[in-house]
């Protein structure tokens, strides 16, 4: 029945050892599956529910609650700008505008070529270096509007 691949299963079995009950590994499991597949499909919700022996409703309620779990397809690169108060003072609004203009998409949308998805994020903990962007796992500080096309171009 289980359609998770061997790599995913071995990662999941490893992470389950850290907790007393399998459900506790749910968020880590969602992240493992998402890392491999880009997003969490309805089918994967059922698969994860099966492997952790919990209901698929429970998996879905968690998957839809957390901002880093995607329940629909996203681009290869997740572009997130910090929209918190210090970045507001440092001018994130112009960064947001430039990102939307360069990518030709609105917030929460994905470019047609599935190269980028644009999302806002909470304070990234680099308030001394704002405004701040995070693309995938890279934190980019002291962002200026003019830098945006060059920064985006790095991510294929």
């Amino acid at each position, binding site marked *: 029945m289980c359609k998770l691949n061997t790599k995913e299963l071995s990662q999941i079995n490893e992470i389950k050892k850290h907790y007393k*009950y399998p459900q506790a590994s749910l968020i880590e499991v969602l992240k493992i599956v998402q890392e491999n597949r880009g997003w969490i499909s309805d089918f994967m919700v059922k698969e994860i529910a099966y492997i952790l022996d919990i209901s698929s409703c429970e998996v879905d309620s968690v998957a839809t609650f957390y901002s880093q779990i995607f329940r629909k397809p996203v681009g290869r690169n997740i572009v997130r700008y910090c929209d918190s108060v210090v970045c507001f003072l440092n001018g994130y609004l112009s960064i947001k505008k430039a990102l939307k203009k360069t990518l030709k998409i609105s917030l929460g949308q994905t470019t047609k070529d599935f190269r980028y998805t644009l999302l806002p994020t909470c304070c990234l903990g680099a308030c001394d270096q704002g405004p701040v962007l995070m693309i995938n796992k890279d934190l980019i500080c002291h962002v200026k509007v003019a830098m945006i096309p060059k920064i985006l171009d790095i991510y294929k």
Partner: protein
Amino acid sequence: MKNIKLNPETHPLTWRLNSVISPIWIHEYIKKKGYQAVLKTLKNFEPNEIIQLVIQSGLKGRGGAGFPTGVKWNLMSNNKLKKSRYLICNADEMEPGTYKDRFLLENLPHQLIEGMIIAAFALNVKYGYIFLRGDYYTAEKNLNRALSEAKNSGYLGDYICKSNFSFHLFLHTGAGRYICGEETALINSLEGKRANPRYKPPFPAISGLWGKPTCINNVETLSNIPSIILYGNTWYHSLSQSVDTGTKLLGFSGLVKKAGLWELPLGITAREIFEKYSGGMRSGYILKAWQPGGAGTSFLINKHLDVKMDFISLQEIGSRLGTGLSMAIDTSVNMISLLINLETFFARESCGFCTPCRDGLPWVVKILKKLERKHGSLDDIKLLEEISENLGPGKTFCAHAPGAVSPLKSAIKYFRTEFEAGTILFPKYFQNILV
């Protein structure tokens, strides 16, 4: 951190850092008195003695609430009947304007691990978790390396340093929700559920992770423990310039000349941090207001800059120390626009579990947007004050909404004219004559 000469006697949290800041791995950490506090603990102390030492040190939680750490530990120790118990480090730093835990996690991971080992010994805990914010990828990488170094060197796992004490520590990463920083919501998240806060009591010390006694401390709090063990209470008291003991990572951000964080004695004035360390406002900008410790703390104004940065002094003038990382707001910023940013954040991050928070915060945003468009009325300001009261402490399930409305309340108090400027002031003859 660049303009302070660091030494162990004055900077227990940061003295191990080099001039070019980079992670301190285990060899360098051990060379600089690292893990000596663990050895001292295992050799010389009983668990209860450690708790008493921490109580006497006066260490207060550095995550924002400022609850005495030793007292929290004592609540756990009083509950001796249950065998399974847990220690959790709250490393889910998402408070806007706060960047202190990331600094400690990335650069001094062993200091945190050492603090957790001592805490686990004091609380008789065998299993611990570091609940790390999912977006802190560098911290995740560095912590994983530090955990494996500590395990390979015998500081984690079974029979630590050939003693009878065993402690297993795991890293758990979150998936992005501000509410996970609330301790009971964090427990739910760690259990693989939605991060909805739980009703208190019972407090986590009685019924926490999987219903077992659980102690949750912030990164900075736990990072203070090794030096308290090594140097003692008298020394820890002597570090501070106020009744609250020890040092604290303090700083300023916003349009100041040099935004950053510094390890400073508690009780130092905000003016000294603002002027001496952060260099004051950038040229052309004038300070209008400031938040002492993150987005959930009340605004203060220029005249408050001489306040001591400690838990008690800030409470006395109607704000909170919070996370201790202050933010300067300049006169070019309209408070309504700033509040829209703050309240939109809080509305977005509400877990949605209790109605006042779920419905109240978007309502606040809606009114503020109305005022921004100059379409508001004086009744809207009154309504904002009413909503602030109804979302205050004790009216909602957790501290999220009270934290969200405290900047709003203080903004109305200090900048009422800006709110009034967002209203349409009808001429007298348009008013309802029946009222």
